[in-house]
């Protein structure tokens, strides 16, 4: 199993004069499902397009399975790409869409037919062969786009925001589908997303990107429980992030005394890590919403707004009332910057 099946070395990508991704270094393990995660403009899609060959790097190299493909044209890299818009050919039937790449290779018709039918069956679209993309639902179109790339037996499969266009139920189905396909075919998958929960659910490793650089690289657990920076923490759901000065927690609006000694310049709490109803501090509830399994409060405090989740068991504190809360050391996440 190659540790650098896909290898990006000192890769710089630009649009005209603007540098989108400066000096990126990343190695993708063979057979893994890796996510490029980040807000829009962070360079994740740009990087993906560069791997696909749709964007020429300004400098640096891209290697796939040991072969330097930096100057290789997009149609000769042996990778697959499922576009966010699916990019199905509107003038072709589902069957012909999937067979498109195979036919380009001048394979004998029988073999094309066999592989295409198998590909269509793999994504549970048997029976849809004669339909045009316009006659299929969003979820079906996406599975078709997936099949179209998979039948080519690509070395690497790239997916651009695979779950963003889908409603909650379809998202779950597609997630399962992607995992199943990956386990079955063992293909190395790189997918791009702005949704941290998608990345957490699907990926073996996550590459969190910001302004074209890697903010943090790690397993889902590492990113979730141990974000290294304020940006990473905020992206992974730590809503309450503050500076530490001496014995106090500081913000631009005020301060709160920490009950313990901090060992890092910043601390962060998840809403679920805030102690609600009981604690040394108090504030005024300015918003309250019911989220099924818990209640989400926004509390106005001297230090700014604190987002806190409370269990459904505890009685609701109405908007405008005072509520007690605590920021315990046990759930605090130390941050370097």
């Amino acid at each position, binding site marked *: 199993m190659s540790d650098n099946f896909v290898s990006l070395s000192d890769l710089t990508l630009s649009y005209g004069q603007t540098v989108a991704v400066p000096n990126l270094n990343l190695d993708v393990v063979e057979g893994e499902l890796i996510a490029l995660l980040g807000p829009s403009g962070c360079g994740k899609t740009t990087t993906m397009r560069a791997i*696909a*060959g*749709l964007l020429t790097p300004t400098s640096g190299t891209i290697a796939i399975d040991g072969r330097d493909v930096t100057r290789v*044209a*997009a*149609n*000769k*890299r042996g*990778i*697959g*790409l499922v*576009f*966010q*818009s*699916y*990019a*199905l*050919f*509107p*003038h072709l039937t589902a069957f012909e869409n999937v067979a*498109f*790449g195979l036919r*380009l*290779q001048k394979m004998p018709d029988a073999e094309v037919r066999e592989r295409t039918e198998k590909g269509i069956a793999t994504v549970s679209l048997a029976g849809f062969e004669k339909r045009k993309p316009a006659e299929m639902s969003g979820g079906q179109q996406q599975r078709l786009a997936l099949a*179209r*790339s998979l039948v*080519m037996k690509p070395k690497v499969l790239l997916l651009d925001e695979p779950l963003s266009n889908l409603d909650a139920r379809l998202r779950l189905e597609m997630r399962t589908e992607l995992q199943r396909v990956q386990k079955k075919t063992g293909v190395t998958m790189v997918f791009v997303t702005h949704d941290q929960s998608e990345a957490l659910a699907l990926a073996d490793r996550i590459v969190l990107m910001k302004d074209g650089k890697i903010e943090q690289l790690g397993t889902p657990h590492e990113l979730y429980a141990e974000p290294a920076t304020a940006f990473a923490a905020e992206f992974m759901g730590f809503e309450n992030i503050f500076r530490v000065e001496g014995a106090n927690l500081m913000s631009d609006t005020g301060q709160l005394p920490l009950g313990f000694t901090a060992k890092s310049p910043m601390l962060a709490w998840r809403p679920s890590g805030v102690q609600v109803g009981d604690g040394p501090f108090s504030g005024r509830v300015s918003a309250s919403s019911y989220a099924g399994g818990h209640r989400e409060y926004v509390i106005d405090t001297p230090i700014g707004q604190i987002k806190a989740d409370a269990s459904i068991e505890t009685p609701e504190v109405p908007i405008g009332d005072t509520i007690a809360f605590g920021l315990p050391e046990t759930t605090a996440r130390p941050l370097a910057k």
Partner: protein
Amino acid sequence: MFSSTRTGLALALPAAIFASLLFILPVGILLSEAFKSDAGWTLQGYIDFFAKPLNRTVFLRTLKLGVLVAGTAAIIGYATAFAITNLSPKSRGRVFGLIILPLMISPVARTYAWIVILGRTGIVNDTIVGLGLSDTPIRLLFTETAVFLGLLQLFMPLMIISLLSAMENIPKDVIPAARVLGANWFQVFFKVILPLTKEGLVVGGTLVFTGALTAYITPAILGGSKVLMLETLLYQRVNVANDFVSASVIAMILIVMSFSANLLLKRIATARK
């Protein structure tokens, strides 16, 4: 919508009647002249017309140039339209404006420029003589090539605009998707772009073909009486020989050719589906 059909008709009919009286009727009568003779309806007019070698030459030449101009415009048009879609939106708008610009200028002005370029003391000849490729200036004007160039320049913007609008309807990532699936640029063109821009090609092709068929000014200026096309022939027959039967025959031929071109291209477009 409103239901009073009578008012509707009252509004629309004046235009329709005007067009019919002023236009369809006279043209219809003119065309019928081609079939008349002292003995009643006959095709003799056509037979006589095609019996003359000059007429046959002019007919074939007009057809040939129509096809050549349309074909060349299609090739250059596709390349240009595709190049334009690769530009930023701002540049695209500017280039588009520059392409439409010539359409606003009188064909007389646009065609006359070729006299300066292709004339005995024009740019091309100056270059040829200057480079020593020939001792004396070559006759470039009043040749089929001159007419071809003039017509191509005149009608190419129409093809480009047609193709451009068709290309903008190709879904966003379809071309990169084809590339990633292994297609080289030829395959991308023939398997993806062409099928998806068929209608644009039909519209553009018809506009250019019929335009070239029915052009008067360009063949008149650049072809003169040495390179007659159907319309300049028509003018000549009427003005010089008062030969209205020939004129009607030619008129009929022109109309039939435009209509057939239209139908044929439409059939090709739907057949490929």
